[in-house]
């Protein structure tokens, strides 16, 4: 008699993600029927008609990028929440996204290649989460859950200021549009080249999480409990921080700072399949991918002009965060 992990919960999530996927192919300035979409997908990318161009060249890279960053940010969020024993944290609240953003902005400012944008984004993200974790560890007399959130907000603000400075220093004709465009957060500028670089990085971060899926659970216990159960706590936590930060940085380098996904999706997934990480991880990948695809479809087809993706995710994410904050005193 298990309350969680009814297989139909996964069927439900798969249906949600597939629906979002089909809708994403169908909606937009050039609307297609689901039948058109399926026909074009079956015909392959070489068919010489408008539908094939729209489906294969325009929408597929964007949808793939949406799934990739949604899955990456959500898995990173689930890992951060577990390893910091804190249901209120996520890549953006911990300042990781801003740190990665600053790293990427610096790389653009210096005219570096895409690989360097990814590399510096990762360094910036790691620096941010390291600072937050270190500073929060120094504070002893306050609620550790809130201290981590506050330290994250402070560090995130600092890195955001750095990003603003990078914009001031940028060459207004070439670099500034590029930085600003990318910082708005969104999938409209994603190229297959971005994807080809980001996807392996996301997979590289995901793989250790998949392998260590059971042990991740133990980090939600106190350090001495986890240690007594046979886990090298500091090594496992460091491994997971690197993995989650790598995934966050890859997502930020592709799509700019898309907030709230990494906070909301793990909570929704936990409600559906429970907190056990080997069940939670596939659930957040599926839901996170579907969520960003759905939000992006809405962003580009709801109004005449395209809305930034981050606005829509904030519209869902911020109220959820406030509800969690209000409930956190009772549940933990």
């Amino acid at each position: 008699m298990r309350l969680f992990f009814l297989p139909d919960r996964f069927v439900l999530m798969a249906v949600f993600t597939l629906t979002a996927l089909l809708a994403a192919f169908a909606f937009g300035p050039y609307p297609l029927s689901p039948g058109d979409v399926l026909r074009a997908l079956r015909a392959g990318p070489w068919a010489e008609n408008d539908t094939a161009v729209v489906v294969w060249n325009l929408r597929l890279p964007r949808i793939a990028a949406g799934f990739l960053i949604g899955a990456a940010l959500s898995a990173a969020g689930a890992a951060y929440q577990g390893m910091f024993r804190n249901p209120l944290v996520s890549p953006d609240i911990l300042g990781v996204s801003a740190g990665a953003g600053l790293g990427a902005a610096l790389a653009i400012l210096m005219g570096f290649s895409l690989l360097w944008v990814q590399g510096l984004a990762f360094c910036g993200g790691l620096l941010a989460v390291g600072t937050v974790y270190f500073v929060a560890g120094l504070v002893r007399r306050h609620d550790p859950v809130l201290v981590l959130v506050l330290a994250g907000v402070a560090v995130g603000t600092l890195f955001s200021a750095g990003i603003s400075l990078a914009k001031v220093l940028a060459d207004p004709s070439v670099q500034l549009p590029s930085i600003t465009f990318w910082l708005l957060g969104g999938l409209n500028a994603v190229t297959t080249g971005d994807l080809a670089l980001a996807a392996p990085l996301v997979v590289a971060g995901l793989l250790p999480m998949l392998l260590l899926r059971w042990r991740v659970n133990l980090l939600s216990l106190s350090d001495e409990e986890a240690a007594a159960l046979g886990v090298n706590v500091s090594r496992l936590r460091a491994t997971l921080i690197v993995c989650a930060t790598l995934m966050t940085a890859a997502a930020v380098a592709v799509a700019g700072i898309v907030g709230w996904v990494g906070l909301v999706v793990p909570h929704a997934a936990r409600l559906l399949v429970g907190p056990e990480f080997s069940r939670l991880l596939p659930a957040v990948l599926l839901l996170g991918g579907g969520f960003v695809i759905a939000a992006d479809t809405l962003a580009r087809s709801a109004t005449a002009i395209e809305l930034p993706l981050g606005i829509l995710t904030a519209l869902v994410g911020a109220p959820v965060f406030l509800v969690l904050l209000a409930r956190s005193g009772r549940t933990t």
Partner: protein
Amino acid sequence: MSLLEARGLAIGYRGRRVGGDIDLCVATGEVLCLLGPNGGGKTTLFRTLLGVLPPLAGVVTIAGRPLRDWSRLELARQIGYVPQAHAGLFAFTVEDVALMGRTARMGRFSSPSPQDRAAVGVALARLGIAHLAGRIYTEISGGERQLVLIARALAQEAKMLILDEPTASLDFGNQLRVLGEIERLKRDGIAILMSTHQPEHAFKVADRLALLKTGQIVAQGMARATATPERLAVLYEADVAAVAACLPATRGKP
């Protein structure tokens, strides 16, 4: 042979010494009870013996080998730890919480196998809580959580258990069940180090007692000879007559 041995142990945090000159040993099939007031250094001592906190001085050996030479995984097969019942953070099922005890018996990259689930089923049944397996850990009572944490340590199949006030949050029936289980583990050859605030529990299960106050072991030895009303009165800063009135009468002696 003693499974756990501490010689000249000084405990504490960096820059804050909590206690020192601690000599302890626990042999297989032996129960050592730690008695002492709150803030006396019990938790710090346990953290040091578990290898979570480095000793400030002295040595701890497990099965004759210095503590720092053990890997976490190997150590978890030797010593299990039962903390005081905690609220828990995420809504794990009781079975999942108990399965965490099997981590040291799994491969590094494995998830629980059917054998692990079977071992957990046995452990839950031993403590009479098999019916809780599918319940959510954060939603059961504090006493039930304590039993789950003990079951988790049983599932770990360690050679020694360290229990931090295992009976503190239990009702009378469950206190007896846990004390009975401790006696049974002892007969199985498990070494046990536990702390308690109830001298009568110590008398029931302990082979030896150690009295801990302000980080020092003030007395150690056979249970009844060590925990005299006079010593307990000093230990807890209480009145001798009041302490004596609370202690169970000595059986078999006039």
